[in-house]
């Protein structure tokens, strides 16, 4: 028996005390700063993080760009309120509903808090009233009698009659920026977009809105959605998961162990090990300041079954051996001797599997991997100390019953003679006799799995992490059915050309030459002088303007004054050449891109600068549809835009273009947030940019959450693959070291390879998307599936050494070792099933597939390993056979 277990058996009470104190310290370490953060400012309290953006590290270029652009275009996170009415003939466009929509908007405008919740203090948080998109807060431009246009609020006051309400719909439908965004395509629903200062106020804002909505009796449905709300909901569900699934797993494992061992007092020890390991892992996670994210919230449910695993091996062995020795110390020595090496190595491989996740580029996955690995290590430590100590502390009386019980229970599946024993002996015999068929079946499964893997579709969508009947999903479906889409992506187009003094000098020279007046010629002559010694284009232009200004001031008559005024205008015109997004040809290129996006069928709508220009142009020209086009000159565009800016919301223009008119922003609304769809749109844009000659060199880039999701998933897929390959090699090395044989090392990985191939093959076949939880599964199966192989191989080799002949050793291996493996498969495989109770789909996915992985790994271990050993026993027992012959 190892030193650790021996010392623990000698001082069982000390062990129990030490682990108890450890747990108590961890609990206090987490509880104190969480419950009273002001008292313990130097300790880290519980921090929950539900922001999908955090799937990427804060310094990731795509996030840096995302934040830069959000600031550049003054875009904020949005709460979306969808209002639909199925009963009224005009949908929501009736006086009652619009009155309520008006009241809701008025309320939303006032939702402000002096402090934006725990994290950002002192700052005002809440709704950004000026940027709300609602009927009463947006401007429209429309005809107002002969030769007149008017700029007005779409709905300055609640309509008095239903007819007036319908008028609101008609006015909005004429505004391309509002149609299908504010007002649904079928003209029956309204969506309000309520920007908030930061995501962490979304709960309070949503609560204020819900309170108001509860007072409405107009018969409309009010759906509150939008990513910030979804995230809040996510946090709530996460805790529900931890509060329901983890304890449920514990209860289930407990029941299953009782079915196998029928001894309450004994099976308490694995539960204690599991609880202590979870407390240790989660406690350390919180204490180190890591956040509880969707991934890390799964730590308890992972650590718990794995923690029980080794203890089940010990108990299983102890249970079978005790009647033989009838002395707990002797039985323990035997059990620990036999299990020590496999337990060390299974722990090492599981740790390696999870720790490999630290090399993925996704911070929440890293945290998850590292702390599960730590939990697994703790579980091992507690198993080899607490379980022996606990056994030593048990009253003799219950042990006597235990021994007797074991023999009695053999009828119920315990010992060699029970149905379980008989079944497993049959399995062993089958594996040896039909080894060729089994190997052929496994190879066939590998080939089929390969085909399935080739069909895997990589895809994810955080909204789909909610179950299909969740209110978030219901709102999501309802809104995407009626509007252009709730999934936002933003595409920027930026002038790529040089904007320096040299280019400006060429431009100024050309324009002055076109002007051709003596004053222009005189000014043009000054260009080389002005250019010399300045690097900055403004300094260059300022030098020329000073020259012309002086001449203007000295002008003796109107004609001279006008001549120099024309020169100054020409110089400013040269300056404006840099404003590329005022150029009609550039805007036409953007228009073409928008049409191209629309043609993908995935984009509900794109809002961009050409839409604004064309709408204002149309209304300036009597509202004639034929005038819904771009003006012919840049000045025409500029004058259309200055007209547009005479509205209540002049700042809206700069959500579509930067004030220097060198970067344009396309707001793209999509009905699906699936990464595959986003990818198709990205490719469509790449194709358009590559195939269509832009009038000026442009670069394009993406931001927005729908795009960020694609980026992190790409990283996840490639990161997972390399993490998996890396840990595969580590595990192979460990196995080779453990068995001091490369052949045995490779053999140990066989069940794992078949398991992973088949699991991912099935995922490909059934069309399940390869998403975040599925990606993590590879590392999990690597850690778990190899465990059975280690136990089986290690003990088969021991038995072979003792017995000397493989088929005989195989028979022995299908005694106690196979029973331990079988019990483990059942206990742990079932232990993950409570995840199916979780309200979030990633947890369910993990639950189903982990159970499948464990069952499959059990099957491949118990059938595959003996079959392969039988087929190649010359390779595996080569030296021993030769030794045997020499002896003979």
């Amino acid at each position, binding site marked *: 028996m190892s030193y650790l277990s021996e010392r623990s058996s000698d001082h069982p009470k000390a062990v129990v005390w030490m682990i108890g104190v450890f747990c108590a310290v961890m609990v206090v370490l987490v509880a104190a700063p969480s419950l009273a953060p002001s008292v313990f400012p130097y300790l880290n309290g519980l921090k929950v993080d539900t922001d999908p953006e955090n799937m990427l590290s804060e310094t990731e270029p795509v996030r840096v760009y995302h934040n830069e652009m959000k600031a550049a275009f003054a875009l904020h996170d949005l709460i979306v309120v969808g209002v639909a009415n199925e009963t009224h003939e005009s949908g929501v466009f009736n006086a009652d509903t619009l009155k309520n929509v008006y009241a809701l908007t008025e309320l939303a405008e006032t939702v402000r808090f002096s402090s934006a919740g725990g994290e950002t203090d002192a700052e005002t948080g809440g709704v950004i009233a000026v940027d709300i998109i609602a009927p009463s807060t947006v401007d429209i431009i429309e005809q107002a009698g002969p*030769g007149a*246009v008017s700029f007005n609020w779409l709905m300055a006051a609640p309509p008095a009659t239903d007819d007036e309400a319908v008028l609101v719909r008609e006015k909005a439908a004429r505004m391309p920026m509002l149609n299908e965004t504010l007002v649904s395509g079928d003209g029956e629903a309204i969506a309000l977009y309520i920007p908030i200062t930061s995501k962490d106020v979304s709960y309070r804002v949503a609560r204020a809105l819900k309170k108001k909505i509860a007072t409405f009796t107009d018969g409309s449905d009010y759906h509150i959605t939008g990513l910030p709300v979804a995230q809040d909901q996510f946090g709530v569900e996460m805790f529900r998961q931890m509060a329901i699934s983890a304890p449920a797993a514990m209860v289930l494992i407990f029941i299953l162990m009782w079915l196998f061992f029928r001894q309450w007092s004994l099976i308490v020890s694995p539960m204690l090990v599991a609880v202590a390991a979870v407390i240790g892992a989660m406690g350390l996670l919180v204490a180190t300041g890591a956040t509880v994210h969707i991934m890390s919230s799964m730590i308890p449910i992972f650590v718990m079954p794995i923690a029980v695993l080794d203890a089940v091996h010990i108990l299983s062995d102890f249970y079978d051996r005790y009647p033989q020795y009838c002395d707990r110390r002797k039985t323990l020595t035997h059990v620990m001797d036999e299990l020590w090496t496999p337990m060390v190595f299974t722990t090492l491989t599981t740790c390696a599997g999870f720790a490999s996740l630290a090399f993925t580029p996704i911070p929440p996955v890293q945290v998850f991997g590292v702390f599960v690995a730590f939990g697994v290590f703790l579980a091992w430590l507690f198993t080899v100390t607490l379980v022996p100590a606990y056994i030593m502390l048990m009253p003799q009386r219950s042990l006597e019953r235990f021994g007797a019980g074991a023999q009695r229970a053999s009828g119920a599946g315990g010992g060699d003679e029970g149905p379980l024993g008989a079944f497993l002996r049959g399995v062993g015999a089958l594996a040896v006799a039909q080894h060729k068929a089994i190997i052929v079946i496994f190879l066939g499964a590998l080939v089929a799995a390969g085909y399935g893997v080739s069909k895997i579709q990589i895809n994810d969508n955080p909204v789909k992490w909610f179950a299909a009947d969740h209110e978030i999903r219901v709102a999501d479906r309802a809104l995407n059915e009626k509007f252009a889409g709730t999934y936002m992506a933003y595409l920027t187009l930026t002038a790529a050309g040089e904007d320096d003094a040299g280019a400006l000098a060429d431009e100024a020279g050309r324009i002055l030459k076109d002007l051709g007046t003596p004053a222009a010629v005189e000014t043009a002559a000054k260009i080389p002088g002005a250019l010399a010694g300045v690097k900055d284009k403004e300094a260059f232009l300022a030098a020329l303007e000073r020259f012309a200004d002086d001449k203007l001031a000295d002008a003796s008559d109107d004609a001279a004054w006008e001549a120099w005024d024309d020169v100054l205008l020409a110089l400013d015109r040269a300056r404006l050449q840099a404003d590329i997004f005022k150029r009609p040809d550039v805007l036409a290129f953007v228009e073409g891109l928008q049409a191209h996006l629309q043609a993908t069928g995935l984009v509900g709508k794109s809002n961009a600068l050409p839409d604004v220009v064309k709408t204002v142009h149309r209304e300036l020209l009597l509202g004639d549809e034929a005038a819904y086009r771009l003006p012919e000159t840049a000045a025409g565009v500029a004058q259309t835009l200055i007209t547009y800016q005479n509205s209540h919301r002049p700042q809206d223009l700069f959500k579509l273009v930067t004030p220097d008119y060198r970067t344009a922003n396309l707001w793209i609304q999509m009905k699906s947030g699936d990464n595959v769809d986003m990818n198709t749109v990205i490719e469509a844009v790449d194709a358009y940019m590559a195939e269509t000659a832009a009038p000026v060199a442009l670069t394009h880039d993406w931001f927005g959450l729908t795009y960020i999701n694609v980026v992190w998933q790409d990283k996840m897929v490639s990161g997972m693959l390399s993490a998996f390959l890396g840990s595969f090699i580590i595990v192979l090395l460990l196995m080779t070291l453990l068995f001091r044989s490369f052949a045995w090392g490779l053999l140990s990985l066989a069940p794992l390879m078949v398991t992973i191939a088949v699991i991912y093959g099935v995922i490909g076949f059934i069309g399940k998307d390869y998403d975040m939880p599925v990606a993590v599964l590879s590392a999990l199966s690597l850690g778990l599936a190899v465990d059975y192989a280690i136990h089986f191989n290690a003990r088969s080799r021991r038995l072979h050494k003792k017995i000397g002949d493989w088929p005989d050793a195989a028979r022995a291996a299908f005694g106690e070792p196979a029973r331990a493996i079988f019990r483990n498969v059942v206990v742990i495989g079932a232990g993950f099933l409570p995840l199916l109770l979780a309200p979030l789909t990633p947890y369910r996915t993990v639950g189903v597939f982990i159970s499948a992985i464990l069952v499959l790994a059990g099957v491949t271990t118990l059938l595959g390993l003996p079959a392969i050993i039988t087929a190649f026993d010359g390779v595996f027992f080569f030296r021993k056979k030769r030794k045997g012959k020499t002896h003979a």
Partner: protein
Amino acid sequence: MRKLMFTLLAGAVALCGAAPVLGADSDTVQEIVNKASAAAYYRGKDGKAKVSMSIVDGRGRERSREFTIIRSDIGDEDNGDQRFYVFFNRPADVNRTAFMVWKNVDRDDDRWLYLPALDLVKRIAASDERTSFVGSHFFYEDVSGRGPTEDTHVLVEETENYFIVESTPKDPDAVEFSSYKNWIHKETFIPVKTEYYDASEDAYRTYSAVRVEVVGGYPTVMEARIEDQRIGGATTLYYNDVEYDIALPEDIFSERYLRNPPRRYLR
């Protein structure tokens, strides 16, 4: 100390002669506001100013515009009808773009817009004067002046130099503020600061007269700024070449001249 303050205040009041004191009746407050309006918008019979406008957004990004304002008071009556032109010079792509306003005391103003690149004159039917003036933080009303009778005024405080008047709109639905406060300089009656309050009584928008100089005998605001906390940033107007009483003919305020600006008056 308090006594000293009181003495100073009493002295100031004495200096101003029959200056109103706190609690003065509303007629007197109305007089202050009328005088303030006249001081800010009706100096001389007519006038002209070249204006550079610097619009700085919440991120510190600056845009600038230059324009010339010419104004004529109908019948040289303070707080009466007026005619305005705003001719844009810069940026070059809006050069010759023009607004013409007929400010009417008894009804909505008439506004015209001329866009040279589209060769288009449009009447603008604006029921609401609190829309942005060409994308700046100034509203139309800040440029043309809010009618003194559109609000109910209360003199809330009087300091050594200022009357502080609080005004609440008679038609609250027509404006975005729930009240505003005006700091009116006692001597010149120039409003040097105006703060606008929302329904929660938070100040969200501030006008300030940054620099006042005497031009042609009239104290004149030469630099004015509006800061807006809701959208962030500020717009500053720099007035250059201010002239009064330049004998503008009234007939130039017509659609014909809108297309062909009287360059003589713009120089």
